[in-house]
């Protein structure tokens, strides 16, 4: 999965054609760390159709808040640079993410 930061977020997500999935996470968020391997599996499965990326919100909080991400884990889907889906909360399951992806490929 592509590592995002301030320097490349605009290019890789907002100015990118097609569907981009961004996994917002942080080191203190156990749930994020637990979910990550499952997202990586999805990345292998759907990597040809969708760009998978992750953003550590440490040092990138302003960016995260700009994207209205105020809860972890947050999985946000963008289509042609537009935010089209935002999944978050402690009950977030990999099945929910798969469903959201399936709806767009």
């Amino acid at each position: 999965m592509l590592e995002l930061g301030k320097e490349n977020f605009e290019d890789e997500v907002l100015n990118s054609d097609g569907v981009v999935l961004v996994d917002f996470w942080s080191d203190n968020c156990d749930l994020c760390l637990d979910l990550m391997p499952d997202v990586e599996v999805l990345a292998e499965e759907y990597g040809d159709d969708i760009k998978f990326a992750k953003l550590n919100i440490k040092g990138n909080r302003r960016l995260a808040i700009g994207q209205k991400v105020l809860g972890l884990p947050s999985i946000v889907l963008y289509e042609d640079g537009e935010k089209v889906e935002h999944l978050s909360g402690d009950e977030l399951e990999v099945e929910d993410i798969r469903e959201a992806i399936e709806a767009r490929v």
Partner: protein
Amino acid sequence: MSNTYDLIVIGGGPAGMSSAIYGSRSRLNTLVLESKRKTGGQPSTYHDMENYPGVPETTAPELMDNFREHAEKFNTEFERGEVVDLEVNGLEKIVKTKKGTEYKAKSVVLATGAEPRKLGIEGEEELKGKGVSYCATCDADIFEGLDVVVVGNGNSAVEESIYLTKFVENLTMIVIHDEGVMDAEKILQEKAMENDTIDFVWNSVVEEIKGEGMVEKAVVKNIKTGEKQELDCHGVFFFVGRVPNTDFLKGTIELTENGYIKTNDEMETNQPGVYAVGDVRNKVVRQVITAAGDGATAAVMAQGYIEEEDYWQNNVLKSDNSVLVAFWSVTDQESMDMISELESMGIEDNDYRFVKIDTYKNRLISNRYDIEEIPTIVKLVDGEVTEKLVEPSTKEIESIL
């Protein structure tokens, strides 16, 4: 069948995992079913753990990882699954998960704990995960340098507020009580009062959360004056108590008005062989150590239950011969005399099976056959009661042989 166990524990928090440690260590074939991705229950969602005896330096998630490792050491199996149904047919208990998988066990421990209460105010559901949070450790990083509001004033609210002050700029606790009054224990209150990052708004409740796609304001109302103010903030944390996870048990297991499971001191529910432990049961002190204690008690009780039931099934209900059961107790001399008399009568030589039940130890069977006085003798043929003699004479006993 591989889905059959001696003991199934529903819920992988501290109470459930303690039951599993005790159960599997006494060689019960034990399964823990946990609905969440990660075991550990509530402690996997907060950080500090300062009062678990014998472990002075740890964090809550770390302690839970150790519980899991400990259970696995004794071969407890763990599976992911949200239990949606429990059926009790005597010794056979059937547990069903949301995905439709069925498991069978002789005994079941209910350890489903409690989940955060939602207030149901405007904006709460819409902005969940977008600034509205029930888990400080999950979201603390996001709020670094930002302002947050905490609703609640019990132990959890205060502990989590103190944790959050390591990250946030300003934290405002909304307390429903008069100035200086909180539900949290004194030592926590003092810590909160001394903390410069924490402000208090007394006599107040949060009425609404406002924001476009993310939290921007909390509307706070003073319940004495009716006055309202809007606090600018990026996060609103709710710690306003918890509700037990018992919806799937309604109709099968006896619950209190508030949905907690009724148990006695032995963790027994109204269903023989089904126990309840930890936060989900009706009790006063809800902590990790008390959850662990409950778990141990239930596993030991379950083990006794399974032994008694197995013995009863194999030696009485499935016996080819007629069975004479003598109910006795060491505290009752008359019943002891009867036992020695029966033993001298050579009952087993007459193609009878002779079984003794200590009514003090084995209340389960005694209650099932409504034994109110001892000595009592019950005769069973093909598992059915054909005679019941209360305080019988030798003649009466002879007459039923």
